[in-house]
Each structure stands twice: as structure tokens, then as C-alpha cells.
């Protein structure tokens, strides 16, 4: 964790991908509410028997699945790396911090 090596030297590039995915999901959210969804909230054309208003939302659901799966595959070996907490294991006592302020600390 704290002492471990940085998982990837190209951190800036990787960061950009996460930002892009986050923006994609913000847009996907906007796509299923006003003002974008009303453009597709009609009956025709019908897809697999469903009205467009329903098929559109189902498609958004499948797209959500596909993009996140793509991100996971892209992460490769890095996907299982625990986030670096920046805390040395023996600097902070575990039990002191659970459920409240650090009793030795500067908070009250």
C-alpha cells in the first residue's frame, strides 16, 4: 500500500481515460431524462416489438454495461490494485480511528 510501487508510470494517460468514462456516464444520465429523452420518447419505430420510448432506455442500459465492461478489460492487471491510501501501516492505530475522532488528535 503506502510503500508499494506506483502501478503504472503512465498515470496521466490512465487518469484521462477515467475522466472520459465519468463524462460518458454523466451524459448517459442526461440522455435518459429531460431534455434528451423526450426526443426519443415516442412509439415509432418499434424495436423487438417494444415502442421506441422503451427500447431506447433498454439500449441505454445495455450501453452502460458494455462501456463499464470495456473499462474493466482495458484496466488489465491494474484492475485488482488496491488504491494507495498513503498511510504507513504502523503509523496509525486501527481501532483509534473507527467510529470517531482520533483520541490523540486535534479534533473534538
Amino acid at each position, binding site marked *: *500500500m503506502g510503500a508499494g510501487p506506483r502501478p503504472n508510470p503512465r498515470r496521466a494517460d490512465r487518469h484521462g481515460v*477515467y475522466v472520459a468514462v*465519468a463524462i460518458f*456516464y454523466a451524459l*448517459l*444520465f442526461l440522455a*435518459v*431524462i*429531460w*431534455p434528451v*429523452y*423526450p426526443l*426519443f*420518447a*415516442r*412509439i415509432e419505430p*418499434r424495436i*423487438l*416489438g*417494444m*415502442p421506441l*420510448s*422503451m427500447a431506447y*432506455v*433498454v439500449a*441505454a*442500459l*445495455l*450501453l*452502460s*454495461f458494455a462501456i*463499464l*465492461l470495456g*473499462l*474493466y478489460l482495458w484496466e488489465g492487471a491494474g*484492475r*485488482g*490494485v*488496491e*488504491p*494507495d*491510501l*498513503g*498511510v504507513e501501516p504502523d503509523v496509525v492505530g*486501527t*481501532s483509534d*480511528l*473507527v*467510529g*470517531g*475522532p*482520533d483520541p490523540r*488528535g*486535534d*479534533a473534538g
Partner: protein
Amino acid sequence: MAAWLIVFLVTIGYLIASLVIGLASGGHASKSTEGYVAGDRSLGFLVMYFIMGASIFSAFAFLGGPGWAYSRGAAAFYILAYATVGLVPWYFFGPRVAALGRRFGYVTQAELFAHRFESRAIPAILAVLSVLAFLPYLMLQMEGAGYVFSVVTEGRVPEWAGAAIAYGVVLIYVFRSGVLGVGWTNTFQGIFMMALAWGLGLYLPAKLHGGVGPMFDAIARELPDMLRGPGLGPDGKPWTWGAYSSAVAISALGFSVWPHYFMKIYTARDIPTLKKTVIAYPTFAIFLVPILFIGFAGVLAFPGVQPADAILPTIVTSAEVGLPPFIVGLFCAGALAASMSTGDALLHAAGSVAVKDFWDNVRPDTLDDAARRRWIRTLVVVFGALAYLLAVVARISLVELLLLSYGFIAQLFPLTVATFMWRGVTRAGALAGLIAGGGVTILLNLAPGLAWGGIHPGIYGVVANVVAMVLVSLATPPMRPAHVRAFVPD
């Protein structure tokens, strides 16, 4: 044998199976609070998937989903819409939550905020809000269970007895097995519900209309407004886009931070397991599609069913459809599974939160680990009994309370985002945000005329929350960088 008796026996068989699975699954956990609440952080993908899937398949989705499609048409698509993004935030902050939990021993959501903001007040407030938000939700699940029993046995098993039987089983396995009981019964119940949803969802439109396409053809001819977004409002007139959009938004904002699901992040065995659960989540939400088909199948074939939530049991038990009693029994069991798989997580979380987040902060260091586990179990029973009395005996109306629940829970979303993304947020800022957000939500619930455009009061609450949090945080000194570093990466 009488048809209702076959239905009843199939249902009882399902309940016994749930009980056996729930009791058998608890043996692996350690006899500690961490074992009872977080399953020793050992859950694999399959169980995680079904625990989160159960969040979609509540009694609301199983009875309310078809009810919405039946009476309000396209308005019901909001349930699908929020599932597109609902769990995605977990992919981004989930791994850090899990790592912090493992490092510092958290098992609840509020412990994270307590540590981040070095505050005992914040978790205590969150605990009270969480339990208040859980109760109406739990009551709804119990009413659903009682209702299903009553309808399919033609009133021979009254609602109070049906709810008592189903939740008696839930209490036993949650008490005995904790989160592992919740997880493994949800897996069994989830597989059951999936099979039933697709089976009935494709069979009923075929039987009543000759297929899904012809069914929508007929509705498009007779009642086209039903299929155009945003569907119909509760009064049967076209709904507003403000109300539809804010229903999606409030559900999506709240979804990733409901305390009883958030704390399941700590149960994941490792980070890939957690990420896979988030990725796979929409595949579970797809199972709402056939559930909505069932409601649409009733629109022209069974006009005038009141209340609309009765449409699914009405179709399933109708002579016109002519399902064999054994299948009706499976349906009844599936509806109970939907209710129980949501209710068990709520009960388990309510007990855990009340002890870990409220008591441990109001009276620190008064409980050892064994006492803590004993108190959580006791409170699971107390909250179960309380919800039962309020729901089934006092029969309190839930619509208003549920609205308030979602409004409260959504206030946790800005706090969660700030916790992991903004180094500058302070304890005073976090508190100010929660108070402003909660206050505005309550105010607009009391005076709905002030909420412009039919927009959900919780959305106004979130806006007030963000403004108050940012302004107060900027006006107060930042927290120690060395402390904040664990939460907000460089």
C-alpha cells in the same frame, strides 16, 4: 386437492427452502461483529451479484412495476432509466471504500464519514436518518408479502398472517446468519425471480395478445399516450417531464449511497469482485423488462383493476389465463422472494447501523465486540416487530414517507462525492450540507406547493446541500492534509 391449497403448499415449500439455506449459510462466518455485518469481507461475485440484484427486485418492482406499467404506461420506464447509472459511482469510489474498510475496520457507511470528518455527530445523525428512511421501505416490503399471501389464497390466509409468516422466516435467518444469510438466500431468491419474470413476462403477452409486438400494437391503437414518455401521472393525465426526470435523478443519486447497499462494499472479497458486481448490475436490471410486459399485458385485457398494484396477482390467478395452481404457487413464492430479499438487507442494516453508528458514538466504548453483536441481533428483531406493527396493524400510508426517505438518502450523495474528490471539504461544511439538504427536503415535503415544476423535493435539497457544503467548507480551515490523503488521492 383444492387449487388454493396447492398454491399455499408450494409457497410454504419455498419458505422452508429459504429458511434452510439462510440457516446453513451462517456457519462459515466468524463469531464477531465483522463476521455478522461484513461476512469477514469474503463474499464472491455470485453472491454479491444477487445481493445487488435484490435491490432492483423488491416488492416494489415485482408488484409496483407492473402496477405502474398498467396504470401509468411509459412512466414506469423511469425504473429502467435510473438503473443505467445507479451503481456506476461504485466503480470509481468502491475500491477506495473497500480498501479503507479493510485497513481501518469499517463495516458501515457512517464509519467512513466519521473517520473522514473526525466527527461523532455525523455518524449519529446519519444513523437516525438511515433508520427513519429504512422503516417505510421495510413496511412496504411487509405489506407486499401479506398482500400476495392474501390474494393467491383467496383471502384464507389474511394479510397480517402472511406478512408474519414470511418475515418470521426472514428474522430467523438474519438473526442466525447475518449478512451471509442475506447473501445466500438472495442468491436462491434471485434465481427464482429471474426464471419467473422471464417465464411469465413472455408467456402472458403471448397468451393474452399473441405476443409482445401485437400487445403494443393494440395499446398504441387504443391508448397511445400510455406508450409516449413520460407516460401518465397518478391522476391518469399525462405526467410532467420535471416529475419524470427528477424521479430518475433522485433514484439514481440515492441508489449508490443507500446505507444498506453501501455497506455491502465491505463484504466483497477483493476489488475485481466489486468491479464485476458493478459491471454486471445492468444485466439484472434487464429483468425488469418482462416484469413491465406483464403490466402492459393487463392494460386492455383487464381494465379497471384497483389498486393497480394488484394487476400481477389478478392476471396470474385469473380463469382466463388458466395457469395451473403449481405455477401460481411459484409466482406467489417469487413475489415473496422479492419482498424478503429486500427486507432482509434492510433489517440487517438497521440493527448494524443503530449499534455501530448511533450507540458507539453517543456512548463510546461501552460495548465489547460480543455485546455489540448481541445488540445488533436484538435490534434486528425490535425493528422487524416495529415495522410489522406499523405496516400491518396500524396500516400507515406509505407514499409520503417513501418520498421523504428517498429525499433524505439522496443527501448522502454530495457528501460521498466530496469525501473522495475534494480535499477542502471540512467537518463544518459536511454538517452544514446535511442539515441544509435535509431541512429543505422536509420543508418542501410539508409545503409541496413551493416545489416548482413537480420536481422532487429531494432535488432542491441536494442543491441546498451542495451550496451550504461548499460555502461553509471554504469559510472554515481545511483538515490536516496527512489525514485527508487516505481519502482523496493525489
